[in-house]
Structure formats: C-alpha cells, structure tokens
C-alpha cells in the first residue's frame, strides 16, 4: 500500500508544488490537448527538413552505390557504423532508467522514464538503419534472416558477431517497444477519458486498447512490468556487449581487446543519459513540467553521468596500459601513433574524445554544477560529441593504417551524402520525438500518482508536521516533559 510506505524527510520531493491526483493529470495531459506552440512547429519542420535530406542522401546511396560515401577499401566502416554504435548507445538510457532503476526501486525514475523509453525506441530506429543501408545492395537485406531458402538452403552464420547484432538489435527494439507501450496503456486511457472531440475519443480509444483500470488488470500489469524489467536488465547489457563483439572478436589492432563489453556498456549509459538530459531540459521548459522533472532528477542523472564517464575514463587508460604492457607491436602502434600522438592524422580526435568524455564530466563532482541547468545542458552536448568521437576513434584510427602500408589511407573525410545520412537520422529522431511530445503523455501519469503521497512536496510537508507532533508526544508520555528546543 503506497500510502503506508515511509520515505525519509532527508530525500527531496520528487514532485514539487501543491498537487493532488487530478492536478497531476491536468499538468501532464493538458499540454497535449492544446495546440502546439510556435517553437514546436519550428522544431518539427526543421526535423522534417533534415529527415528529407537524409532520405535524399540514402536514395543517392542506394541508387549509385556505397561509393557515394567516401568509404574505401582501408576505411570500410566510416561515419555510418560510427553513427550506428552512437545511436545504439544513446538507446541504452531508456531501458536502463525504466528497467534497472525499477529493480533498484529508484523513485526518481518515474519522472523521466516515459520520455527516456521513447527516446530509446527512436534511437534504435536510427541505429538499425546504418548497417542496413551500409549493405549497399539493400534489397537483399532479408538475407540476414534465417529461413529455409532456395539458396541451398544456405543459412546465415550463427557464429558471426554481425548476425548476433541482428538478433540483439531487433530483440532490443521489440522488447523496448512492448515495455514502453504496455506502460503507456493506462495513460492513454486517461487521455481518452478526458477527450472532448470525437476524433480524439476514437483514436485514443483505439490506442488505449479498452483499458479500464480494473484491480486485476493492474495486478497483472505490475507483474508484467516487473518481469519485463527483469528481462530488459540483462538485455540492455547484452546489446552493447554484442555491439562491442563486432569489434572485439576481430584481430584488428585497437579492437582485439577483452575490455570492450563493459567499456561499451558504460559508454552507452553515459551517452544515453546525456541525450536524456538534452531532451528533458528542453521538454520540462517548453511543456512547463518543472514540477515533475525537478532539479533533483537532473542531479541524479548527472551523478550517473559522472560515474559512467569515469568508468569510461578508466577503460581508456586500461587499454592504453595493456597496449603497452602486452608488447604487441601492432597494438602499441595503433595506440601510441594512430591515437595518442596528437600530430598523427587523426590524433586530434583521440584527444577531443579524452577531453569530452573523461575530463569534462568531472565538473559534476560539484553539487552546484550538477544542479545548474545551463551547465548540464551544455555538458550533455559535450558528452554526446565526445561519445560520437569515441566510436569514430575506435573505427577510423584502427583501420586507416592497416597491415599493408601501401594501402594506408589518411585522407578519409565524409562525403556530403554520408553526412546527409547522419543528419537524416537526427531528422528521424527529432521528428519522432516531437510527435511523441505532442500526442503522448511525456511523463508516466499513473506512476507519478503512485509515488505522489510518499514523495510529493505537499505530502512530505504534512509528514514533517506529523513527525514533529509525534516526537513531542513521545517526550511527554515517555520522558515526562516537553522536549526543549
């Protein structure tokens, strides 16, 4: 019973202001019942424009072949696989927040989980496209599916990490989508029951699957969420582990390391939280949700950022040390010359990565900076740039000087359509996010209501009074005199 659960007064409230259940519904759902603001339209159109440029870039690539990108025989994975790993990484925060923090009983996840899960789904949609378009002859993409075929049947290679990726990404997408949507059902029912127009009643009625709020349904819903969280927790760790296997199971210097799985997972959480910060700082302002996404929420996420950023930093130093200690000349060359040497062709990207991912998050040891919106917003962008460069460093600096010096390629720079594809994924991501923010409750209404009476500001204040009164009573009854203040 939620109202009997006691929460320490030391913890800051998760919902600010004087709220009751109806007010929570009102605050979160009324923005999606109003006409969107000018700012929304501007953002939406810019996103759609980017998306269209992305569509055109992909059209060029499909029609004229992968030569439209500046990839070559030496650097076979350029921007597109960098983007793939980057987007998958970003897609890790949503499930981490909703699954792992659910298992750890972290109340603050209720304010941010819905938007973070949506972000996860959109990010995985962007990620999944990179390897598909990278295939070149994309009309043969269905060859990755294991089905009895007329080619032998020649099956896919189940021992290949690239096939593991197919399974990992598609499973991750499906499970995240189910988790997100099953959580949305009760909130969509709330929107449906408030709807005034026929069209809204009809559409939200379809979307909410006829949810009634029956106690038995809630009981099953709770069980479903808990088990899905339990399944998603190892899943989220497995996905980036498998992505790292794409590199780690090869014999390319700089990739062939056992530290990759934990290092990639930490990096994924790191960049995912940064993206959540970027989005939510804007959302809470534009949609007036400061009472639900409080400074406390932002601070909690910044703590995760400083932790995972430091784990990533440790991993960078560890692999550098092992490269030297392992005494493999190729490995050491990749690290000492291709990466750490600032004056090598791509050395700048290594040091940019080091600065953005390891040095800059250390600012968040200061509580004042953790709770500063401007600094957090700026840092979230710095971290995402840094994490993009991490993947760029891993891919490009390991491949541009291969084992045959005559095929060294130091002139790789992306073509306009390669960049266009990347911008297109941004377009897709933000188009989806703008539509989500317009048509869906960006905060889990039912979950906020279930923590309101333990963690809402007004209820906590009442609790303080009860505590004081009780202490007085205790002194009078047990000690025999009033407690002197």
């Amino acid at each position, binding site marked *: *019973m939620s109202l009997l659960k006691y929460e320490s007064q030391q913890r800051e409230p998760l919902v600010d202001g004087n709220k009751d259940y109806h007010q929570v519904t009102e605050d979160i759902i009324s923005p999606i019942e109003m006409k969107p603001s000018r700012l929304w339209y501007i953002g939406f159109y810019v996103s759609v424009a980017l998306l269209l440029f992305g569509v055109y870039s992909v059209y060029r690539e499909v029609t004229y072949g992968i030569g439209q990108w500046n990839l070559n025989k030496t650097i076979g994975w350029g921007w597109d696989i960098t983007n793939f790993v980057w987007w998958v990484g970003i897609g890790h925060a949503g499930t981490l927040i909703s699954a792992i923090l659910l298992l750890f009983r972290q109340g603050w996840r209720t304010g941010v989980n819905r938007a973070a899960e949506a972000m996860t789904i959109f990010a995985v949609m962007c990620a999944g496209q990179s390897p598909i378009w990278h295939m070149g002859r994309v009309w043969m993409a269905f060859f990755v599916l294991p089905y009895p075929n007329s080619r032998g049947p020649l099956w896919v290679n189940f*021992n290949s990490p690239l096939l593991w990726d197919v399974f990992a990404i598609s499973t991750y997408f499906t499970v995240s989508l*189910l988790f997100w949507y099953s959580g949305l059902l009760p909130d969509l029912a709330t929107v449906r029951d408030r709807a005034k127009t026929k069209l809204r009643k009809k559409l939200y009625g379809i979307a909410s699957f*006829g949810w009634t709020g029956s106690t038995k349904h809630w009981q099953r819903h709770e069980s479903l969420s808990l088990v899905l969280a339990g399944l998603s927790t190892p899943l989220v760790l497995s996905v980036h582990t498998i992505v790292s296997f794409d590199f780690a199971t090869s014999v390319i210097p700089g990739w062939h390391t056992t530290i990759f799985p934990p290092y990639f997972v930490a990096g994924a959480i790191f960049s995912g939280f940064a993206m959540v910060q970027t989005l939510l700082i804007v959302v809470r302002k534009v949609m007036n949700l400061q009472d639900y996404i409080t400074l406390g929420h932002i601070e909690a996420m910044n703590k995760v950022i400083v932790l995972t950023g430091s784990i990533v930093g440790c991993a960078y130093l560890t692999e550098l040390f092992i490269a030297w200690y392992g005494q493999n000349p190729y490995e050491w060359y990749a690290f000492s010359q291709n990466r750490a040497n600032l004056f090598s062709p791509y050395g700048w990207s290594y040091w940019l990565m080091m600065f953005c991912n390891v040095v800059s998050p250390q600012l968040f040891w200061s509580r004042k900076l953790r709770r500063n919106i401007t600094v957090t917003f700026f840092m979230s962008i710095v971290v995402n740039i840094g994490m993009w460069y991490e993947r760029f460093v891993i891919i490009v600096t390991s491949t541009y000087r291969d084992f045959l010096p005559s095929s060294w390629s130091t002139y790789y720079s992306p073509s306009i359509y390669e960049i266009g594809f990347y911008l297109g994924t941004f377009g897709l991501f933000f188009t989806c996010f703008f539509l989500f923010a317009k048509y869906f409750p960006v905060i889990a209404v039912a979950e906020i209501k279930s923590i309101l009476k333990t963690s809402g500001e007004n209820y906590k204040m009442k609790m303080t009074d009860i505590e004081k009164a009780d202490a007085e009573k205790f002194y009078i009854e047990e000690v025999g005199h009033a407690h002197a203040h």
Partner: protein
Amino acid sequence: MAGGIKKFVVGAFDDEKVLFPAVKNVRKAGYKIHDVYTPFPIHGLDHAMGIRETSLHTAGFIYAITGTTTALGCISWILTKDWPLNIGGKPHFSLPAWIPITFELTVLFSAVGMVLTFCYLCQLSPFVKKHHFHPRATDDLFIMAIECTDKTNDAEVQNFLQNAGAKEINVQVAETGWWIGTYDKEQKLYADEKGY
C-alpha cells in the same frame, strides 16, 4: 462478447485511506465486489479484495525456455546436420558462439509471449470498447462497483457505501464484457439489439 447485463451499485472514493476499510467492510457485509477501478496500481488492494496472485510470470518463464530451446534446437540442427560449415576446422557444435543468439531469443519469446498473454487475459486490444463505470476512474477517483443480485436491496447498498465514505453513488445497468467498437460512438447494449 457480452458479459451479461447486470445491475451495479457504484461508489466513487477519492482517498485510498477510505477505500481500503470500505473494501473490507463491503466484503464483510457479504456484498459481491465486481471490481475496483483505480487510476494507478494500489499495492495491497488485490489482497484486500481477495483476488488471487497472478501467474503471468510463470507463463513468462515457460515462454522463455521455449525461446531457449527453439534457438539451441534450430542452430544446432542447422550447423551440425543441415549444412555443417567448416569454419577454420572448428567443431560444428560450437556452443559458446551460440550463447548470444540463444539469450536474445529467450528474452524475445518471453517478452512477446507475456505481453500477448497479458492482453488476452485482460481482454485488451485495439478496437475493443468496454463499459466504464466512471470517467474519472482513470483520473483521480477510485470506483467500486458492487454487483446486485435479485435479492440485493440496492438502496441498502447505497446507504452502506455512503457510510463507508463514498463521495458519489449511483446505480448502473451495464454489460461488463467488451464490444468491437470505438469510443466516439455511443455504447449500444446487446439488450437493445434485435433478437436478443
């Protein structure tokens, strides 16, 4: 699917603290609670109403092991019997390399199976419409529906709910099943259909 037309006395509560003793007293008095509709999950309410634990998680486990066996069965048949590939002279039965896919399919089967089972058990689906006793059941009220039989004196039940602290009380005749339909159309009872 019609759940049958029945009469209900419906009470709306606005506080969980009042709802819990009310549920207990209504049950003690021998009335049959059809259901309590709440805007968010209230822990312990299912026990207070005497609803048994769900076994959805057991279903999830069964789906999970189905996924595991499907993955292991398919991969080992494909790579050892149907088309054994010689990859650097390594054994055809290379279990460690199959762990990632086996794990992913375990999770996938379990998650998809559980969500479908959840929707089936709760009879949730798009284009399904149900009777809602109170529009604020998804907002801020806790709605208790008590089923009336021929012997029930509904004035007495209404009085009882009044004393138990309900804020709004009314009597509704409703079908509790579901209809194929959308929420923009008026609800049509099966009783009004010709030939019912």
